[in-house]
């Protein structure tokens, strides 16, 4: 990393940290995710053991990370605010006066948003998993149908770390959208709509349209949580799904960076 880039990253880190909204959105990501997971885990029970000890097809790992469906909205807000706070307040003029190489300034922001989002994502998914475990056990998710799993199992590790990566990509996607749209309310609305709309309308379609929607959805990366074959799994594997979310993030960031370099501040 060049000296200028290092200084820019340090400055962005201070900037993001000194904005109270970062703390609040971070707490919201963790709180909403863990809360929804706990609610889900404490209200879902299984009768698999009673049905002759056959292995059940509930995905206990994915269920232990279920709250991310809602928590990701706060992550989108965090990513969007990292960029719109510049435009909405005029800070962009100070930023580009201090770091006139626009590509460097944008890159530094991407680096810091990615780092913070991954840290929040990791805390969120680990906490969600650990909170869900005893609740699931208490509701009948036990051997032989549901042998207990731990964080260090390869599949669990993939799901938990993958969820942190997924949340990171969503924050970056939102930041890219925000660099394009520049207004907080508009950027958050656009990003949240793009993220959730395909999933919301999915239920109305079957066949090819349904499959196309699944391929186009930014939430494709949620497939990283899949640890069991189920009828309602998406038509692609965990890593392909995460790759689809990454494609959305990269696309938004590329357009955002291009505009960031071109526009007058």
């Amino acid at each position, binding site marked *: 990393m060049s*000296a*200028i880039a290092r*200084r*820019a990253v*340090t*400055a*962005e880190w*201070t*900037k993001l940290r*000194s*904005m*109270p*909204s970062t703390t609040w959105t971070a707490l919201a990501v963790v709180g909403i995710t863990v809360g929804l997971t706990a609610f889900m885990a404490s209200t879902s029970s299984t009768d698999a053991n009673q049905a002759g000890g056959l292995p059940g097809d509930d995905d206990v790992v994915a269920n232990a990370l279920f709250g991310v469906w809602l928590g990701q909205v706060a992550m989108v807000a965090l990513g969007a605010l990292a960029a719109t*706070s510049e435009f909405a*307040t*005029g*800070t962009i*003029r*100070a930023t*580009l*006066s*201090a*770091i*006139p*190489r626009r590509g460097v300034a944008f890159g530094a922001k991407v680096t810091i948003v990615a780092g913070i989002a991954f840290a929040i994502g990791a805390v969120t998914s680990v906490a969600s998993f650990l909170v869900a475990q005893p609740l699931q056990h208490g509701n009948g998710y036990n051997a032989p149908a549901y042998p207990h799993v731990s964080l260090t199992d390869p599949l669990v590790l993939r799901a938990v770390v993958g969820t942190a990566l997924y949340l990171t990509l969503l924050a970056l996607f939102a930041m890219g959208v925000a660099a394009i749209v520049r207004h907080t309310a508009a950027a958050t609305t656009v990003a949240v709509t793009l993220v959730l709309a395909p999933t919301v309308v999915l239920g109305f379609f079957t066949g090819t349209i349904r499959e196309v929607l699944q391929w186009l959805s930014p939430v494709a990366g949620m497939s990283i949580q899949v640890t069991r074959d189920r009828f309602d799994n998406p038509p692609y594997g965990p890593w392909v799904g995460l790759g689809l979310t990454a494609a959305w993030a990269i696309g938004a960031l590329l357009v955002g960076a291009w505009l960031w370099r071109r526009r*007058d*501040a």
Partner: protein
Amino acid sequence: MGPAYGRRMDETIEVRGLTKRYRDTVAVDDLTFSVLPGRVTGFVGPNGAGKSTTMRMILGLAAPDAGTASVGGEPYVRKPFPLREVGALLDASDTHPSRRARDHLRWLAESNDIPRSRITEVLELVGLADVGGRRTGGFSLGMAQRLGIAAALLGDPPILMLDEPVNGLDPEGIVWIRGFLRSLAAEGRTVFVSSHLMSELQGTADHLVVIGRGRLLVDASVEELLSSAANGAVVLRTPDRTEVMTVLANAGATVVSTRADALSVTGLGAERIAGLVAEHRLRLLELTPHRATLEDVYLELTRDAVEHAARGDRG
């Protein structure tokens, strides 16, 4: 801080043929001028004249449609440590309202490897030492303005560019900023200050760049401007009007009677007039050389250029 900063006091701002168009208006029109070190250069024009747009182009924040702007011999955007070379105040409200003043200065310092001790120094310098821990959203316009000045001074830069720094300051603050700008120029720095009010710069600026509708109207020293505007008239009052008129006319002056006992004289200095009147044992009640103010000059210059469109100018 100190000499380790490698201050270069020979840095100038060079604007060459700078032009900026917005959809249907030309905000800055082929502007060319230089801002030199060691003096305060006022950048004056009515609201909407293109002052802020010009400053934003100098900083590389807005791209010109034509022309160039350079600072210390190179475009601003090439500078590895821009805040140590140019301190700029564009809009005092360009801070995040939820961020504490000290944090605002901190990230700026970090971005240009400016020692953290400098943050306390500049806060003290502008009189904000006690409120550094407060969020800038709660600042009055005057405090925000002082914070903006602190940010501009952070890198101890040889060049300062301030857009309407007097805006929002209380009378005490106005006196302070004027003295401060003078002292910065006296240290050899390049000080470029905009204002839409010429009177704000009287007594502060040494040199003036006056623009109207994006075009350069005047680029001259304050002295030159004032002497070009003063026609040298002297107003006098005397009970011996007719006799005085004769004496002065004979001495080659143009004399106009303005009131029953008042005359306006051009072509002779006040001292010479007083001498002539005394020589002829005539009486004099009052003798006043008429001085032009910068405001007179400015109004004269911008009469045709005044534009009431607030659009396209943030200052």
